[in-house]
């Protein structure tokens, strides 16, 4: 009876997961099939689309740019976001804390399109030509809310009494931070930074409005898509997914690690 009761929910969960993963399965499947037409039945298997992808000179530039952006995003939104979450948890007024938390999540709710064009307008007003630097600011902004959110959840049960004990024993705030706080939250900080890197690697909209004539992986994929069916997109996408999946899984493991 208990088993039967779980059958319907299990079926529903399976259905949703199929819906979410069907596109991914399709991309991976067609990155290794011979026919450039993406249809059934499948004719043969090949790795040539991967070779094709790598022989595209734009691909290496795009990959380098994407990795630079991801690194910058990870470092800055990681540092800023973790510090912000830490500051929030230390705040004594619950109302102010809730208000600041909501405000910091705004960039996740405002459509990326609006964020992208507002940054384009802003940089133009400053006279900054479009490029990687502008895009990097956009990426940090887009990742920040997610870093704040995960760190805030992680820090909610942070034990501040250890910190007070350290202070009572005469440690300076900096010393207390270096020797007590940071080692305790380090796995979460790294986890949040990896999440920021993953978000940055995948970011297209803000990038597209601010990167000018430069390339990043999603911008390259966009360009290839506009030109019609090119199965090397599937190869690039599969590699990107593998990379992102590794980052996210690593981020989760680190976030979950009990730091005591």
């Amino acid at each position, binding site marked *: 009876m208990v088993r039967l009761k779980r059958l319907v929910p299990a079926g529903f969960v399976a259905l949703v997961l199929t819906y979410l993963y069907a596109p*991914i399965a399709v991309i991976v499947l067609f990155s290794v099939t011979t026919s450039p037409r993406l249809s059934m039945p499948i004719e043969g298997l090949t790795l040539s689309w991967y070779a094709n992808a790598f022989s595209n000179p734009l691909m290496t530039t795009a990959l380098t740019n994407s990795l630079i952006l991801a690194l910058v995003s990870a470092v800055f939104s990681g540092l800023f976001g973790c*510090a*912000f979450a830490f500051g929030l948890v230390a705040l004594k007024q619950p109302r102010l804390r809730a208000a600041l938390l909501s405000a910091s999540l705004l960039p996740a709710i405002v459509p*990326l399109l609006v*964020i992208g064009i507002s940054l384009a*307008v802003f940089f133009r007003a400053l006279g900054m030509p479009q490029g990687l630097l502008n895009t990097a600011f956009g990426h940090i902004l887009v990742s920040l809310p997610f870093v704040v959110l995960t760190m805030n959840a992680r820090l909610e049960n942070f034990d501040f009494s250890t910190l007070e004990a350290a202070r009572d024993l005469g440690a300076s705030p900096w010393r207390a931070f270096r020797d007590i706080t940071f080692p305790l939250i380090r796995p979460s900080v790294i986890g949040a930074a990896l999440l920021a890197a993953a978000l940055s690697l995948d970011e*297209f*909209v803000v990038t597209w409005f601010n990167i000018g004539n430069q390339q990043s992986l999603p911008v390259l994929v966009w360009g290839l898509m506009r030109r019609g069916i090119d199965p090397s997109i599937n190869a690039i996408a599969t590699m990107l*997914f593998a990379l*992102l999946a590794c980052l996210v899984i690593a981020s989760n493991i680190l976030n979950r690690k009990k730091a005591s």
Partner: protein
Amino acid sequence: MADATTASMGGARRPLGPLLPAGAFYVVFFAVPMLCLFVISFWTAKGFTLIPGFTFANYVKIFTSPLYQALMLRTIGVAFVTTLIVVPAAFALACCMRFVFERRGQLILQIVLLSLFSGYLVRIYAWRTILGKQGLLNSTLMWLGVIDEPLEFLIYSNIAVVITLSGLLLPLAVLPLYSALLNVPRDHLEAARDLGAGRLHVLRTVLVPMAMPGLRTAFAFAFLLAAGDFVTPSLVGGSQSLLIGNIVADQFRGIGSNWPLGAAMAFVVVAVMLIAYLAVVRLIRWVTRW
């Protein structure tokens, strides 16, 4: 870092230092750019030069043009249908994760969230591959002999946009709903059931009100992000299914672009969506209380 330390020493009890870097970043790269966008929405453009000024002409144009009105209505419609699919599905999924597969709930959540990282563009492209006229679904159905002619309505239609957007936004809606349901104790549901409440009654009077913060966030994610998307309509939507986001994007990166007009449109979109969002939140609250 040195600045943050001195600040926290000065503030002793309530160190504001850690809030400063991100706070300053938000002000400079979020608040100020939004303000810039708002200001130029009252300007005009001649060719590629922006002419400062103060005119409501852009807003008047948006509200009086039948083309923009139609686009706005279609955008609201598509976003609303997407939300009607995404939020209940995500709620049901979150309930399964929380109350049926309790111990495996976290794992299912991770799997759901991982799908987000297959790439935003890539998933849209994949849906085009699946739904296309000679795509996976049509060719499989024809190969199996279920249909003789490819189904045309699958791609370049509002349906394709809704299917794709729902897939993109579902994981985002599950996250806040699952965390909200984690705060709903199982005993509450069992108590309500023991007192003779039917399943629907429990859903309406216990589950939904207790999950309200999560529902609100999930609704905001699904509705606002669907309404603001322009990549999905431009790849799977065809010319008959463009949304207001496409027109905004064109004003900034297209031929004959008009930044002030695009800026005004962006604010109209955000304002309309916020009003719709607040209306629905009120509606849910009213339904759960009556």
